[in-house]
């Protein structure tokens, strides 16, 4: 049972983390290949503060603040670059983060920080805390989508030049998306450190960034339920894959590829199509879907 609890906790953290990326990438259209750096900032902040004797609950907002601040700085630096340039720049950010943390003895350097003290919370309690925070984040994401900010971010995702002509302060909004997204990643980081009781530079590298992006895309970029599903599934996958032992990464890679190849809109896309087919079967008119020219 404890194993399942730990798995569920890990899934909750992944969901939170993936949702935070979805705000930046799914909603605002800013591809980030370096999101793990902000998970790292949150995790290190919380871990260091816990070690310094500050209660874990108090470190959570501080982790969010730290990650959000770094996020704004990175966001500011990224404002000048777009699309693929942005993707590569953010990829650079994560390498830079790992490279810098590695050299900091006060952050444990290569060895990282282990035996992080935590609150008096049972494993089950911590799981509930994680799941509750993930659910709250999901609710926040749905809310943002519905708000005017969601509409604006969506517009920026599609065509930021036209948004400017419509009087939108594009940089401000991008920064806002970055700030919220990275702060939430920081929260996920705090939970991450507490869950594994260990943080080290390698836990927040490029691979992590890619895997969280995969979760978002796998679930269906932009779709909150899709991302939740994708994150939950992909984070649990390696554990289930233990059975196929030697072939698990092969299967993981293959699966990512096949998913994109055959259902580029992710799981959310599959579900949407299935629903539509169901509706059509019931006799409603076939919907015309216009392909982009």
């Amino acid at each position, binding site marked *: 049972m404890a194993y399942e609890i730990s798995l569920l906790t890990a899934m909750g953290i992944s969901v939170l983390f993936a949702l935070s990326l979805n705000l930046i990438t799914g909603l605002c259209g800013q591809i980030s290949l370096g999101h793990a750096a902000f998970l790292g900032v949150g995790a290190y902040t919380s871990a260091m503060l816990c070690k310094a004797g500050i209660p874990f609950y108090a470190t959570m907002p501080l982790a969010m603040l730290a990650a959000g601040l770094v996020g704004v700085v990175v966001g500011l630096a990224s404002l000048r670059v777009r699309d693929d340039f942005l993707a590569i*720049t953010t*990829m*650079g950010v994560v390498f830079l983060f790992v490279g810098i943390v590695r050299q900091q003895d006060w952050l444990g350097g290569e060895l990282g920080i282990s035996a992080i003290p935590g609150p008096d919370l049972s494993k089950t309690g911590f799981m509930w805390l994680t799941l509750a925070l993930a659910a709250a984040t999901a609710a926040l994401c749905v809310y943002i989508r519905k708000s005017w900010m969601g509409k604006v971010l969506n517009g920026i995702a599609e065509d930021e030049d036209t948004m400017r002509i419509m009087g939108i302060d594009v940089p401000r909004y991008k920064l806002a998306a970055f700030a919220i997204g990275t702060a939430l990643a920081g929260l996920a980081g705090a939970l991450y450190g507490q869950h594994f009781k260990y943080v080290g530079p390698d836990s927040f590298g490029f691979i992590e960034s890619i895997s969280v992006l995969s979760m978002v895309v796998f679930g269906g970029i932009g779709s909150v339920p899709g991302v939740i599903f994708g994150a939950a599934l992909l984070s649990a996958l390696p554990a289930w894959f233990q059975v196929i032992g030697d072939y698990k990464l092969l299967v*993981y890679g293959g699966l990512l590829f096949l998913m994109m190849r055959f259902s580029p809109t992710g799981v959310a896309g599959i579900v949407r199509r299935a629903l539509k087919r169901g509706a059509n079967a019931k006799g409603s008119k076939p919907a015309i879907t216009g392909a982009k020219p």
Partner: protein
Amino acid sequence: MLFVELIAQGLVQGSIYALIALGLTLVYGLLRILHVAHAAFFTLGGYIGVLVTNATGSLTLAFLTAMLSAGLMGIAMYRLCYEPILKQPPFVALIASIGLYIAFEELFRIVFGASGLSYQSPPLQKQIEVFGGLTFSQAELMVMGGTVVIIGILGYLQNRTRVGVACQATVSDPQMAESFGIKLRTVRDLNFFIGSALAAFAGVWVALLNNLVEPTMGAVPSYKGLAIIVLGGMGSVRGTLLAALTLGIVESFGTIYLSQFLDRNAIAFAFLILVLMFRPQGLFSKR
């Protein structure tokens, strides 16, 4: 002297980066896809190089087989993996490509073993003194020379010939290019063939320089390659060459004088970010 030697070493490293990044540039220029799986051909080249040389003793044969098979596999990858998802937003191809790369890396490990392969007696290791005590191995000299020649040829093809113009036209508007008699598949096959063959070419060289091919050897070059095509201004052959050499030299000095602060990858990316802050369109962009 040390200064010259560091520059020389930077150029060797930069040449290899250039060969790898070139394929990425070609594919990016053509399809706007960040083709991470490209690095798999680099690794493949390394393996084929070692296997063929060990089996036949002929390095030339090894180069030919490596480049030919990687080239053909490049075409296959385009047809099977990318062609069907071209109309999707770019991150779809990116994730697909990353998935492919992971799968390939594992495939290499399962087929060839985790510990990698080496040449039984690595060829081209003779040291040659160029001037004033500055020595290179034959392999190092050849990789530098080969890179400059190959890239020169490609640059000429891209900018001055009808084939080059045809390629560029497919980038802007594939449908219209078709309406002017360009067969999209041919152009794209050609690019994937050349790009993948060059990656394999680089792979054989790296295998020679390190006497080691491993399943994971493509990882670092693949994301460095991405950094380079950005530095080079995306899609330009000349820019890619210059960016690769620059990065090689920056790293060469960085690993000596900055290694206390940043590791090699971080140095490369710090440089990239710094450049992009001042030139968001890349270091050597035409625009």
